[in-house]
């Protein structure tokens, strides 16, 4: 039985577990599931910190005892020992291991005592939090007080650890596995490029460790084995972190995670050893020698993988989405995704990783001209760790700084810096090969060396002032071929059977190409289809697309195709070596994809499932002769190109909000005047609503035009009439070119103007009339037909005054496809993949739309707690990093569950603080009245309070913070407020409400920022007050749906 509230995962597919509960992972809900299912055991070590914390609470509540459920993998004592700082310290001292000097504090007084004894600088870490939220490094007494206070607040048990600063030491991780017979193996060692002081999730990391001699590595290995035994993790994987003083080699233990972690996933992909899969087998009693190594088949899993390549992981950040958050890295994690690259050398892997990051770099390139960077800025960028520091290291070298200087400032090991120097040296040689300037041209041995150093064609082209394709041509004509090597766990000592490849430029290629006669005389064939993945997770493009890619692969395998997956994201299922017939762990760039196409010559390439990443490559691939299957590139362009799209809409007589596109400030003003404020503005060719705004007046428009130029220069700014108070609708549909069937119509909870990725939505729609739904369907069919969609299509509509407007059409898999599939039981992505391979909907047996007898709510998960100082207000720019699903018979309960799953606890009693903008004052009356009737006490600001009081609602009024009344902050701090409803207006009230909202985030108090959200919340609260929440596996919902639609 599986519990997970995340619909975007492969694991919550109904076929994976026997009973799948898409329910909130809280102790209360899990207890209900246990009560119902009566499992023999609970496995808490695979679901990250959430799984671990929930399991711990279940033990503490006596639930596991009551139902006689055994905790397997790691038990309560082991988890406690590793998570509780004091117990961990004792355990380490017992087995003779060194730790940084430290002390625990549960109050500011105790914290100050520790400050006295240990001395500055200090690291402060709150106990029991996710991703190290709320910790920090204090260099001054003032910083110390601030961080310590916040840490005590953030900790689930109000406890912080104060530690000797080992910032700047070398940082290492070991992935360790143990079985029930006490066999322990190390799966992978990881060395962090960024030294201690930067969260490992935010560090560039390298596998295996590069700068440890065998003596030191074995000492670390021995320590890791002692630790897993002493902590008492019975079976499964653990992650253990160490720091080493580069001056004398002193090694200290940092921490241990008694569970699989993000690093385990990375280590699994880096070595080919599937840690989580084996951890599960070990938990039920298998021993390592009883499990076969999938890759070699012949040898057992009781060994230590050895690798013959270098792996580099680079985190992906999204600071541009949170302008208030500073791009400075520290010990709390801020990245939202990562890419992994494999090469024969560090230089090659690093450059591949940088282009795989998909942030506009084609390697360790020269996006900025180093000559233009002032010395003080450069120094600062080296000193303060940040998302682009790797490039500033390059600029520093280019400006003449020595390796030693850079290493002294950054504390990055000179070995890494030397490798960067070597890349620069070759770059300097390459840039001499500009034929029209120096009369020297790029010879083939230099070109080969550049490729071996990981330079992309684009990078080389920029250096020698030629175009990318000509480099590619030269490469091919002089016989420099991309070679593919296998990831095989054993450095070729044994034969490997799983085709898991990475590219490099070596003497031997290992790909096994199955030759079959090509169909229809085309150069491509072999009955195989290539799927382009989604690259690193980012805001706007997450695991939803990985889900779709996996499904495409599964579906095509069912049809008998050989499937080839290309992706660079180690956090995905698509990069599991057994998801597709072949896996290429490669960056998703034109060059890297074309090299694989050259090798494999697939019959078809799918670009629809990996989000914007492959879609952006579609045109170039097509122009290069690659057979793109599914909806044509022309149709994709028709939907994306503003003018072409307007023509389509006009032809189909569908309404669109008045709009225009402007290249200049004057244009923009004219258009805005024509269509009338408010307007929705955004730069074109950007993702996830990047820099999208709602503009109410000309003054703001001016400011925006300036910013837009920075985000996407030379490209027009799109201006739409903003439909105030409109209701937004998302439709996911599938078409085979002649028949179109709607998968799901989702009604957004929040009004138009909040990015669809951040808005909660409900399926089926709950406030739309039959006429409106019929209109939506009609439009969907018409557009799909007009665009000759073959596969999936996502359309966004807005409804205002009973007019259905079309906002956007995406002829590709959307973020909501997994949600719709889980809700309806229809595997949309699988069907779409089969359509692309030539099947019709009729053949696939999906011609009728599904009617549900239950309600599903999708809610977004927001990363605000990671970015201190960022206001939690939602807007047209997407900010969420994930989603959860609530499912039940009624909207109220489904919504309540979705909130619970998103960590927004809706209270059933207590004090509720309300402060809304003027526009919402009429609507809030009814909401407040219902809350009051349900027994809540209402506290409000003056304006809101006055309206409520005049409507006979009992309300306590608090003064404004900026006028000196801090009462509301006190109430929130003390935990007296159980819910905050605060709808912010554009400008006024901002200064007063921001501290309230950020305090709420800090204290983990639910804060609703839209009036629609408040209405839904009231519905939810009402429902759960009426009857107790029940749980049901997704399989039951789906069979009920199937019965209803038979």
């Amino acid at each position: 039985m599986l519990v997970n509230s995340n619909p975007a995962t492969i694991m919550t597919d109904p076929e994976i577990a026997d009973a799948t509960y898409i329910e909130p992972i809280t102790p209360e809900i899990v207890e209900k599931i246990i009560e119902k299912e009566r499992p023999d055991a609970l496995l808490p070590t695979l679901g990250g910190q959430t799984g671990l914390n929930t399991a711990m609470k279940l033990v503490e509540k006596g639930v596991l005892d009551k139902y006689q459920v055994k905790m397997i993998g790691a038990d309560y004592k082991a988890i406690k020992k590793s998570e509780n700082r004091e117990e961990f310290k004792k355990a380490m001292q017992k087995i003779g291991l060194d730790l940084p000097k430290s002390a625990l504090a549960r109050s500011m007084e105790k914290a100050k005592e520790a400050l006295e004894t240990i001395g500055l600088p200090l690291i402060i870490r709150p106990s029991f939090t996710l991703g190290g939220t709320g910790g920090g490094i204090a260099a001054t007494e003032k910083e110390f007080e601030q961080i310590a206070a916040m840490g005590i607040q953030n900790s689930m048990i109000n406890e912080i650890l104060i530690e000797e600063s080992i910032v700047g030491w070398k940082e290492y991780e070991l992935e360790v596995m143990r079985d029930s017979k006490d066999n322990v193996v190390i799966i992978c060692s990881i060395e962090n490029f960024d030294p201690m002081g930067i969260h490992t999730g935010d560090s560039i990391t390298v596998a295996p460790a590069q700068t440890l001699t065998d003596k030191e590595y074995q000492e670390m290995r021995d320590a890791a084995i002692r630790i897993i035994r002493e902590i008492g993790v019975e079976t499964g994987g653990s992650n253990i972190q160490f720091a080493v003083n580069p001056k004398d080699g002193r090694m200290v233990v940092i921490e241990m995670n008694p569970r699989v972690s993000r690093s385990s996933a990375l280590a699994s992909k880096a070595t080919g050893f599937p840690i989580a899969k084996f951890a599960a087998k070990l938990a039920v009693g298998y021993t390592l020698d009883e499990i076969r190594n999938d890759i070699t088949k012949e040898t057992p899993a009781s060994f230590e993988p050895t690798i013959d390549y270098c792996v580099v992981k680079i985190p992906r950040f999204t600071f541009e989405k949170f302008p208030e958050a500073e791009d400075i890295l520290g010990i709390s994690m801020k990245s939202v995704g990562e890419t992994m690259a494999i090469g024969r050398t560090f230089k090659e892997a690093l450059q591949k990783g940088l282009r795989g990051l998909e942030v506009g770099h084609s390697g360790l390139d020269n996006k900025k001209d180093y000559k233009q960077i002032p010395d003080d800025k450069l120094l600062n960028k080296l000193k303060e760790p940040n998302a682009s520091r790797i490039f500033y290291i390059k600029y520093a070298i280019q400006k003449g700084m020595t390796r030693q200087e850079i290493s002294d400032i950054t504390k990055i090991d000179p070995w890494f810096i030397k490798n960067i120097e070597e890349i620069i040296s070759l770059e300097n040689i390459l840039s001499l090969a500009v034929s029209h300037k120096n009369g020297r041209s790029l010879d083939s041995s230099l070109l080969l060396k550049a490729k071996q150093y990981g330079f992309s064609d684009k990078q080389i082209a920029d250096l020698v002032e030629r175009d990318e394709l000509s480099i590619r041509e030269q490469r091919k004509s002089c016989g420099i071929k991309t070679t593919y090597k296998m990831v095989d766990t054993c450095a070729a000592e044994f034969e490997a059977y799983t085709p898991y490849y990475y590219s490099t430029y070596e003497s031997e290629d290992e790909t096994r190409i199955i030759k079959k006669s090509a169909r229809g005389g085309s150069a491509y064939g072999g009955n195989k289809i290539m799927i382009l993945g989604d690259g690193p997770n980012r805001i706007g493009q997450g695991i939803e697309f990985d889900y779709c890619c996996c499904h495409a692969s599964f579906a095509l395998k069912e049809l008998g195709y050989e499937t080839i997956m290309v992706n660079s994201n180690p956090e995905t299922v698509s990069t599991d070596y057994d998801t597709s017939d072949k896996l290429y762990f490669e960056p998703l760039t034109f060059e890297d994809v074309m090299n694989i196409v050259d090798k494999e010559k697939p019959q078809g390439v799918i670009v629809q499932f990996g989000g914007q990443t492959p879609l952006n490559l579609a045109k170039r691939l097509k122009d290069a002769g690659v057979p793109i299957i599914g909806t044509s590139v022309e149709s994709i362009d028709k939907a994306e190109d503003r003018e072409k799209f307007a023509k389509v809409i006009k032809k189909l007589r569908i309404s669109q909000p008045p709009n225009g596109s402007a290249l200049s400030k004057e244009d923009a003003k004219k258009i805005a005047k024509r269509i009338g404020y408010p307007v929705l503005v955004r730069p074109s060719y950007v993702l996830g609503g990047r820099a999208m705004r709602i503009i109410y007046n000309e003054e703001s428009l001016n400011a925006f035009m300036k910013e837009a130029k920075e985000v996407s220069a030379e490209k027009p700014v799109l201006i739409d009439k903003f439909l105030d108070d409109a209701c937004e609708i998302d439709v996911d549909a599938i078409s085979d070119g002649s028949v179109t069937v709607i998968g799901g119509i989702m009604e957004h909870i929040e009004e138009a103007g909040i990015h669809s990725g951040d808005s909660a939505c409900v399926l089926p729609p709950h406030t739309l009339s039959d006429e409106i739904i019929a209109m939506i369907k009609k439009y969907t069919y018409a557009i799909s037909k007009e665009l000759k969609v073959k596969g999936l299509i996502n359309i966004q509509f807005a409804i205002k005054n009973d007019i259905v407007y079309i906002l956007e059409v995406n002829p590709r898999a959307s973020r909501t496809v997994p949600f719709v599939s889980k809700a309806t039981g229809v595997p949309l992505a699988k069907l779409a993949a089969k359509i692309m391979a030539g099947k019709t909907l009729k053949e696939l047996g999906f011609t009728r739309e599904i009617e549900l007898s239950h309600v599903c709510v999708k809610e977004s998960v927001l990363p605000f707690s990671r970015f201190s100082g960022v206001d939690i207000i939602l807007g047209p720019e997407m900010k969420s990093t994930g989603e959860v699903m609530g499912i039940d018979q009624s909207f109220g309960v489904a919504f309540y569950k979705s909130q619970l799953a998103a960590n927004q606890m809706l209270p059933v009693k207590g004090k509720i603080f309300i402060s809304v903008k003027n526009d919402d004052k009429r609507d809030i009356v009814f909401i407040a009245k219902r809350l009051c009737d349900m027994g809540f006490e209402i506290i409000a600001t003056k304006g809101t309070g006055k309206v409520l009081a005049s409507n006979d609602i009992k309300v306590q009024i608090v003064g404004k913070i900026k006028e000196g009344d801090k009462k509301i902050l006190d109430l929130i701090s003390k935990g007296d407020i159980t819910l905050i409803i605060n709808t912010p207006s554009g400008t006024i009230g901002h200064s007063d409400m921001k501290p309230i909202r950020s305090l709420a985030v800090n204290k983990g108090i639910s804060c609703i920022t839209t009036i629609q959200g408040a209405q839904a919340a009231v519905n939810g609260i009402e429902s759960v007050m009426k009857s107790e929440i029940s749980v049901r596996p997704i399989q039951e919902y789906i069979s009920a749906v199937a019965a209803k639609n038979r």
Partner: protein
Amino acid sequence: MINKAKLMLEDGMVFEGASFGAQGERCGEAVFNTSMTGYQEIITDPSYKGQIVAMTYPLIGNYGVNTEDVESRKPFLEAFVIKELSGITSSWRSVKSLGSYLGENGILGIEGIDTRSLTKHIRLSGAMKAIVSTEELDDKKLLDKVKASSGLLGRDLVKEVIEPGISQWNNQGKYKVVVLDCGVKFNILRELVKRSCRVTVVPATMLAADILKLKPDGVLISNGPGDPAAVKYLISTVKNLLGKVPMFGICLGQQILGLAMGGETHKLKFGHHGANHPVKNLKTGVISITSQNHGFSVRMDSLKSDEVEVTHINLNDNTPEGMRHKKLPVFSVQFHPEASPGPHDAGYLFGQFISMMEAKYA
């Protein structure tokens, strides 16, 4: 300036790379080692005499060379083959670069080699004769030379690595251990010292009677290079020691014991060279990740089963990895309990040797 170098295998497969370390020309058997760390220990392991060692891990030299991590007085391997030599040494213990260390010791290094391709080739075709040269770059001539070179079979390489005379490694300790040096790794001696042994190192050429005159509590037959069957004098020495003193054989030591007990040895296709081999102790069921370096093995079916039993097996290929005499105080392992490089999991075997000597007192 880059100096070209070539690696030619006896079946004609050739790799071109760049030279580092010493210049010149050397023949030997090409083998691969899969350890990701520990190149300094590998280079100074006398068991590699007669071999050209390729590292499967591509980035070598990163932490330089230090004064402590040596396994013998000098490097013995014929040549060292890698993908990329680090342009820097980064370690607080490093005293020099790998390149200059090899150069000073007259060892040829070649970098820029697709060592994975080489490894696959050796895996499929077996370990074979090879030549590394910075002098001769003509393929045909290289091939002739490599074909004319002598292989490992039937060659006594032990004589080429040992030092004459008795030497006292340390002067204190409860147990008097004589180490029959066939090319012993220092870490075997260090492990014995850790366990209160007074260690006397004697050359493999010493006669049994002379060894017994030293009145040892136990004799350790060390690791060493080459074909065990070629070291006839040592086999007879060990035969004469059987039953007279507790004996522990490591690697070549196991093979010599096998031969001395009347068995046979054979050459493996490409052997075991690495630090990740799972070995199961058949008595306890405990699995150790072991350090290994051997190209020959004892044929267990050639030994009398009422006298000798297999105690350890390699879980990768089920080959025997340890044995003991059922009646006499004699046991051995094919892998390296002293590690260096490699995991320390099998260190318990030294304890077993101590217990065996302890039993003599009891």
